[in-house]
């Protein structure tokens, strides 16, 4: 499956269906619980990571929460 991930081409060598959680695992994203994901321009609710499937040609962006306190 060929995707664009954070602006770069990425090939995922898996035949079975891939949801967002599995994709983050495939991409070896550390601490995925702190990641926000955008699929084809739409930010995904975390509750939908399991049910949202990526398809060949999709564009995926992810980034970490940026926060803190004093």
């Amino acid at each position, binding site marked *: 499956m060929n995707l664009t991930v*954070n*602006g770069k081409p990425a090939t995922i060598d898996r035949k079975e269906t891939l949801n967002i959680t599995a994709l983050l695992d495939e991409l070896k994203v550390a*601490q995925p619980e*702190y990641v*926000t994901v*955008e699929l084809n321009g739409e*930010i995904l609710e975390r509750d939908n990571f399991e049910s949202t499937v990526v398809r060949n040609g999709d564009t995926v*962006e992810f*980034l*970490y*929460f*940026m*926060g*803190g*306190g*004093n």
Partner: protein
Amino acid sequence: MIKIPQNIYDDIIAHAKKGFPLEVCGILGGLDGVVSEIYPMTNTDASNEHFMMDPREQFTVVKDLRAKGLEMSVIYHSHPETPARPSEEDIRLALTPNVSYIIVSLAEPNNPVLRSFKISGNQVEPEAVEIL
């Protein structure tokens, strides 16, 4: 070392003062440790003690930087009433790799203090700041 043009340094301090008594936050973009862009961001917490950036704004900034051939260099925020050092929460949420973390303290309102840190895991290393 992180290098920041004087006008962007001034903009960071002005942003912190304008937002006082709330924490403000933003992103600096650049290349090879030299800052060239500032993106003041919304603190969705609107708090005196916490900040959290809006993910939509984050994605917009990341894409804009990419289009310009730049990278995210710095994540900055203010401490309205406490020193310019990372709090436990700052360290826990310093998740973005390969960036500098700048904190501006307004604890002394007439003497803002800006310091930069590299944070990885629980390791915090002060970083020199050069004003260009």
